[in-house]
């Protein structure tokens, strides 16, 4: 288990001290991927050749006594809505099945410059719309803790790959919980940074005012290390915020003494399963014992967040996905005339959930309904934002469950509204643009349960400190699925 289960810092030490080469390390992960994939299907593309070429570059640097960066030579994978030059980027959609981006996303470029080794692209719900990865246009991904359950979504492939130790870390994207919910379902750490902290350039757009890229990792320390690389202002993304990027690892302090933690009571209603609640209440006790001041609080407008979100996100999606028309890239259906080409390409290229959201969004934006739905939802968004601002005058961090339930069984949820309700605790945070992290808090029925922490805008530091302290004083993040213990025993 050693090698596959090592932290980024430990892998870096091995590489630096020449105890292993990046090529050997990459091959080890590729071998494990080959073994795990038949059960998991986290990957849509495996880039073995490209990975080994990149690993060789690092090995040459090390051999030449050149210094290497902290993530240099370390394998990783990206959600398949993050553009990679020359490597297919499908968004798990048939409409982009043959799309090969002519450029890199900013995060891809940054990870390349940092010397990381891309081993593949990860499965997801089509265009990031969904919470189970069952909406993938290709195949569903399984949860590493129980192959009969979903890994969550939409970054289900990213969460499953990290949980199954197929990669040391992955990137996902989060529009309404798509990093945090699968992280919770798979028992890994998922961070959604503040809106504007990480460039969205080259992230295929779903709902532009909500989308944000973030890391999925085994530990909080790894999360800080990856955030160090990917965060920062980017002139290519006009919604990227110019801010002074700190070294996030400086916040990794095992101390929450006198930290003020608010527990919003609204996050303990709305379908919360008792076995999940028990785990989160235990987490609250951990924080209290460590000297944090934990207090109940209220975010009175939370019940309006979910309906407002689905109207706003669908409206933005219907507009963003108008570009898939078969003209410049993507799938083109055979057709007699132009309009027929647009319509048939879209009809044959998009899956059911994407069509449903395009329909909902088009309706919410259409003449006669715009004010009642879209404009009204934007006003609700203001109220949600103000609720959080109010709470943060008193608290450093807010604490809640990440999800009301553990991972669903594959095929268990078919009603779209029932699935939307599962996002109830993660969505308000995207509407307010806040940073938030999900970390392993324990188990219910043998499945992982996620603890969600929420911070002020650009307060990733305090969020990481609160998460790190919890992690250092608990053992949940060290557990791995039983099959993995066996499968990953290796020479190292």
């Amino acid at each position, binding site marked *: 288990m050693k090698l596959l289960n090592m932290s980024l810092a430990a892998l870096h030490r091995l590489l630096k001290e020449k105890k292993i080469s990046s090529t050997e390390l990459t091959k080890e992960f590729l071998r494990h991927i080959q073994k795990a994939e038949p059960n998991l299907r986290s990957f849509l593309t495996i880039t073995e050749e490209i990975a080994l070429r990149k690993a060789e570059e690092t090995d040459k640097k090390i051999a030449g006594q050149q210094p290497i960066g902290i993530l240099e030579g370390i394998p990783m994978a990206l959600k398949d809505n993050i553009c990679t030059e020359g490597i297919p980027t499908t968004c798990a959609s048939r409409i982009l099945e043959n799309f090969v981006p002519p450029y890199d996303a900013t995060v891809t470029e940054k990870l390349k410059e940092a010397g990381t080794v891309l081993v593949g692209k990860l499965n997801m719900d089509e265009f990031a719309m969904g919470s189970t990865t069952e909406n993938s246009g290709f195949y569903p991904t399984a949860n590493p803790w129980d192959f009969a359950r979903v890994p969550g979504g939409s970054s289900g492939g990213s969460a499953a790959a990290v949980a199954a130790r197929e990669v040391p870390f992955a990137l996902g994207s989060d529009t309404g919980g798509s990093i945090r919910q699968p992280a919770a379902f798979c028992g890994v750490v998922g961070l959604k940074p503040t809106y504007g902290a990480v460039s969205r350039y080259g992230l295929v757009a779903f709902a532009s005012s909500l989308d944000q890229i973030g890391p999925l990792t085994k530990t909080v320390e790894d999360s800080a290390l990856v955030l160090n690389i990917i965060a920062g202002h980017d002139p290519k993304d006009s919604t990227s915020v110019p801010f002074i990027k700190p070294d996030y690892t400086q916040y990794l302090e095992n101390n929450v003494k006198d930290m003020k933690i608010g527990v919003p009571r609204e996050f303990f209603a709305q379908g919360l399963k008792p076995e999940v609640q028990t785990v989160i209440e235990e987490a609250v006790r951990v924080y209290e014992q460590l000297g944090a001041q934990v207090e109940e609080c209220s975010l009175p407008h939370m019940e309006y967040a979910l309906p407002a979100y689905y*109207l706003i996100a669908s409206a933005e999606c219907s507009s963003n996905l108008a570009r898939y028309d078969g003209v410049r890239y993507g799938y083109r259906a055979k057709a007699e*005339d132009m309009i027929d080409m647009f319509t048939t390409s879209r009809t044959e290229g998009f899956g059911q959930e994407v069509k449903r959201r395009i*329909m909902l969004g088009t*309706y919410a934006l259409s003449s006669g309904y715009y004010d009642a739905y879209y404009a009204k939802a934007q*006003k609700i968004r*203001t*109220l949600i934002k103000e609720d959080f601002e109010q709470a943060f005058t008193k608290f450093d961090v807010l604490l809640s469950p990440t999800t009301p339930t553990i991972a669903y069984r594959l095929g268990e949820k078919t009603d779209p*509204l029932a699935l939307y309700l599962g996002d109830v605790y993660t969505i308000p945070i995207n509407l307010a*643009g806040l940073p938030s992290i999900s970390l392993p808090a324990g188990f219910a029925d043998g499945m992982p349960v996620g603890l969600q922490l929420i911070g002020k805008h650009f307060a990733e530091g305090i969020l990481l400190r609160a998460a790190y302290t919890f992690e250092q004083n608990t053992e949940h993040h060290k557990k791995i699925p039983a099959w993995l213990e066996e499968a990953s025993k290796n020479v190292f």
Partner: protein
Amino acid sequence: MKISRKEVEHVALLARLKLSEEEINLYTEQLNSILEYAAKIQEIDTENVAPTAHAAQLFNVFREDEVKPSLAQEKVLENAPEAENGFFRVPRIV
């Protein structure tokens, strides 16, 4: 507010989607159940609330109007379903 079958057909036309009879029925039912739930937001008075389009502070992003290199034409056309003489080729319009 209820969405009718006819409206679903109209919205599909606006969104450039062709729906089968079954899909029209299914979406009418599902959109109604989602909209019924979304009607919750009407409960609350927002008369004096300003809308939020973006959670990040809004500011204009200015830059010099300079010519900078962009993607090469052949790269732009690499993914084109059909291209000819440096153009995207599409079916006849008129």
